[in-house]
């Protein structure tokens, strides 16, 4: 293969850098602005949320995007952590909604994927096809049926209305099935001959080899549900039970400084998870497309 020219590499680098910056800027802005004083926030964003004569909020034109605070201040964090416990409560709401969904979805996906991998046949193919169709549907399509089923089960305004539909997501099953199919059949057969039962084959042979896929699925699911807005808005009518993501989507004038701090705190779990499992994530996603027979 020919080596890329210096100019070509420079172009590629600049393009990548522009895209990276475009994605990073909002994050950097949020993080740096969270360390601004309230007066500096007001000076920069005071005009953003301005009351109209009719009483509704609208976005004004004057915005002063500033990345470096004049003076580093922890006032916003102090407010969030010590003066306004409702933010921490909402953070906790996010945790108790997201963590069970991640754990249950990974567990359900692993068991379903194992089933799809180990047993072949027309029935299996039919069910798998059904899963793929479900996967192709946008979330909004299933939201109404989810609402109806939750209502029928009496789960509306309980966390289970979000956790249960979240636990059975077709996308994770699809990804993990593709990953599991890469495990050579001879490994399963060797385990059988070695005396392993189906559960032992699943837990001791298959799952350890799918660590990368399991981690990447867990992370993707975590990000997805950590940032959810529609589900809690529709299925949880009690604001006390709603997660922080809902609050962040509904920031009002006067709270923008706090919102920066809350958003920064809110990003920490995702960032830590990503940094911890970056290697697995890359491997897990890279292997989804390369199915070997």
């Amino acid at each position: 293969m020919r080596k890329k020219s210096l100019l070509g590499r420079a172009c590629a680098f600049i393009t990548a850098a522009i895209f990276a910056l475009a994605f990073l800027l909002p994050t950097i802005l949020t993080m740096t602005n969270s360390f601004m004083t309230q007066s500096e926030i007001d000076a920069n964003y005071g005009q953003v949320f301005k009351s109209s004569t009719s009483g509704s909020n609208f976005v004004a034109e004057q915005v002063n995007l500033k990345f470096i605070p004049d003076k580093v201040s922890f006032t916003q964090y102090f407010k969030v952590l010590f003066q306004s416990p409702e933010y921490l409560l909402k953070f906790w709401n996010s945790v108790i909604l997201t963590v069970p969904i991640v754990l249950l979805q990974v567990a359900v996906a692993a068991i379903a994927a194992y089933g799809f991998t180990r047993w072949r046949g027309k029935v299996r193919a039919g069910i798998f096809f059904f899963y793929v169709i479900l996967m192709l549907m946008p979330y909004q399509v299933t939201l109404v049926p989810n609402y109806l089923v939750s209502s029928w089960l009496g789960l509306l305004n309980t966390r289970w209305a979000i956790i249960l539909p979240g636990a059975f997501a077709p996308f994770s099953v699809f990804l993990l099935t593709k990953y599991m199919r890469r495990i050579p059949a001879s490994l399963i057969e060797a385990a059988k001959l070695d005396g392993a039962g189906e559960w032992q084959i699943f837990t001791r042979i298959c799952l350890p080899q799918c660590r990368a896929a399991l981690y990447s699925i867990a992370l993707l699911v975590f990000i997805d549900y950590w940032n959810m807005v529609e589900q809690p808005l529709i299925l949880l009518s009690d604001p006390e039970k709603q997660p922080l993501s809902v609050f962040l989507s509904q920031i009002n004038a006067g709270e923008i400084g706090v919102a920066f701090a809350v958003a920064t705190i809110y990003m920490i779990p995702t960032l830590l998870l990503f940094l911890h499992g970056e290697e697995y994530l890359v491997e897990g996603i890279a292997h989804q497309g390369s199915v070997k027979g």
Partner: protein
Amino acid sequence: MAQVIFEHVKKVYDKSVVAVEDFDLAIRDREFVVFVGPSGCGKSTTLRMVAGLEEITEGQLYIGDTLVNNVLPKDRDISMVFQNYALYPHMTVYDNIAFPLKMRKMPKSEIKKRVTEAAEILDITDLLKRKPKALSGGQRQRVAIGRSIVREPKVFLMDEPLSNLDAKLRNQMRTEIIKLRRRIDTTFIYVTHDQTEAMTLGDRIVVMDRGHIMQVGTPQEVYARPANMFVAGFIGMPQMNFIGVELDVSEGRYSVLAGGETFLLTDAASTKLRERQVAPGEVIMGIRPEHLDVGERGMAVSADVCEMTGGTVNIHAFLGERELIAAVPSHSRAAEAPPVPGSIIHLMPEVDMIQLFDKDTGGSLLWNQPKERETFFPAAEDDRR
């Protein structure tokens, strides 16, 4: 006792594809039997039926005295070495070897003792803490064998275990398997498509083609007394030469006319042909390359290329359209002064090594193919009943 008995075993895939048919064989306790044949002949399928990895469509399979048709693989007391080693990549070598023992809930001290012993036998003690990806092909194969022997199974199955190794390592591992077999005294069933492996390892060889047993016998029997043209052609390298000849009989003595030359068959061959009442006419003569000599007399053929293989030189020649190969020692006159391509040379067969086959069925006219189980293992059926 770990005899393995196949009674008319049949395997059909998808209700139409017959992979193995009427497989009838009795493997003695502690015998090393090699299934050999070309790709798709059903040898691996047969092995997998013994392992319990394939269901048996028809027939009975016994391991020891137990009918195992419906017995789970883990309850058959067998172990298997796979072509691709099938090592668990997330486990260390120690854990790989210990896995079957852990599954049987053996005490830790016993597991450690057995793993250490197996590692010593296979000379992999230094590798016990490594993961499979940090091992060479040969080392992986040793670990796979270690995992199999540690359990001390009744029957030891090997599915083309050397085919992923390079030629040098393959020879080395072959010797290792012979040594291993001496140390662990159990029944072996070994599958290969490599006839050299089959000849060097097996007490008996089962030659298979298209799901059927073509011949069962010791390496010497299969080589010297092939039951049919398939076996004759499959066993031996270079392949046996086949020539259409005219069989004649005069005063009870048979002869063949090949390449314008008449070769009088031995008394033993004539007796066999007489006993089988073989009529004169067109037959197929088979002669191995190493049993053809280049000289002044014999079949007149047109010389083609010569191949130096080390100890022997393969001289290719044409008898009409039919290509023949003569393998002569590299120190012989014919090898030292190889014939010019296109020149006429004479090939003389060793008459007592001539094989004769029916031109229609391909079956041997000289050797009977005995009913395997009756001849080689007469007591098997009675023992079980």
